[in-house]
């Protein structure tokens, strides 16, 4: 089996998406921590278009964009499937992955901005979370049923990073009484053994994200 390498950065939820999928499928890999202020020649060579992490390198060939990587892992290693079999259910799963990808950005905007822009971002974030609560999450343990799927993995940042961003930005978005399903999903997700063992530390994240609050990120 050709070797698998992952280029990532420790506080990045996009990196963690790939780590979770690799671990859930039992795929051995080598991890390389990138310094984004000094990008490695390997990163620039493997992702010349976006120059971003995560990048998966399998047998020397590189795959970029976390959601594309997740689908690649699903196609290449079908064991422990992370997607439903049925085409319609798959389309629904992909819909929610795209939704959280597009609309979830509001939470990060809230974190990095101030004043009016921040207020608008808070509103947008709440709307996004309300949609997940009312339309995406049913009575199931996870988004697609009893087992973790790509939707849970794509939303994984809500389980750990959101709390840190809320704390540093001084805004509470997910109040348990207002978002009972989401709150329960967060608990279930973090309790899954493989996820539990592969989460960045809360305190380390606070230290990392605190100085970044209210300032637009550098590329």
């Amino acid at each position: 089996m050709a070797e698998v390498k992952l280029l990532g950065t420790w506080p990045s939820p996009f990196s963690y998406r790939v780590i979770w999928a690799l671990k859930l499928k039992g795929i051995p890999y080598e991890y390389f921590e990138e310094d984004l202020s000094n990008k490695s020649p390997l990163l620039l060579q493997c992702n010349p278009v976006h120059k971003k992490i995560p990048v998966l390198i399998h047998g020397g060939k590189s795959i970029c964009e976390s959601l594309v990587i997740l689908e690649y892992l699903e196609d290449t290693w079908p064991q422990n499937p992370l997607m439903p079999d049925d085409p319609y259910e798959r389309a629904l799963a992909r819909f929610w992955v795209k939704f959280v990808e597009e609309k979830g950005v509001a939470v990060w905007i809230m974190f990095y901005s101030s004043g009016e822009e921040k207020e608008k971002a808070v509103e947008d974030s709440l709307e996004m979370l309300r949609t997940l609560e009312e339309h995406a999450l049913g009575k199931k343990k996870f988004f697609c049923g009893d087992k973790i799927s790509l939707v849970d993995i794509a939303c994984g940042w809500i389980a750990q990073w959101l709390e840190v961003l809320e704390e540093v930005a001084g805004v509470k978005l997910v109040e348990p009484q207002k978002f009972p399903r989401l709150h329960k999903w967060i608990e279930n997700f973090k309790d899954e053994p493989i996820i539990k063992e592969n989460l960045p530390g809360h305190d380390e994240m606070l230290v990392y994200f605190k100085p970044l609050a209210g300032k637009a990120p550098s590329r």
Partner: protein
Amino acid sequence: MADEVTLLDFWLSPFGMRVKIALAEKEVKYEYSEQNLMNRKSDLLLKMNPVYKKIPVLVHHGKPVCESLIILQYIDAVWKGKAPLLPSDPYERAQSMFWADFIDRKVHDISKKLWTTKGEELEAAKKDFFECLELLERELGEKPYFGGEALGYVDIALLPFSCGFYTYETIGDFSIEARFPKIRAWVDRCLKKESVAKSLAEPEKVHEFILETRKGLGFD
């Protein structure tokens, strides 16, 4: 057994055109339902896409599939027998998904700026647009289609934006043929296919619509 397929669409939408090309490639019979987005959104649209309230929506056996690229993947999985849109090899599939994602992230927004901005902003938009097309032309290389020997997912993702090329060239005062001859040749090659020709909006109608909209925005 008849497949009940309905497409909720708006004639000008590049995202809707993607779905029309895919359905035509697969020779799927469907009912076309034009949604007039200038007026109040129809009850059907609001019911079928409550989250985004947008077209296109593919309704198959009463169940809605939303978001054009997701619809393409759905069509490819359900109507497997003919004209595969995505490669079967996982790595090639990933490359197709990467480029379609690139097109979604960059081409739509940048090309909108080509007719909604002026002066320095327009020059910046042109620069971004040229960079996009340069990358895409490099990816196309010497292949007849982005999909290789046959039209595929990436071709279908990009083609609808070619309806606006005449408008962008006219407003921005540049020539795509002169700067990106392979892309121009690729568009012309694809237009020879009936599935593409009957699915894309006519550039003249697009041009007319955009000019009217620009007047409303205070241009010219």
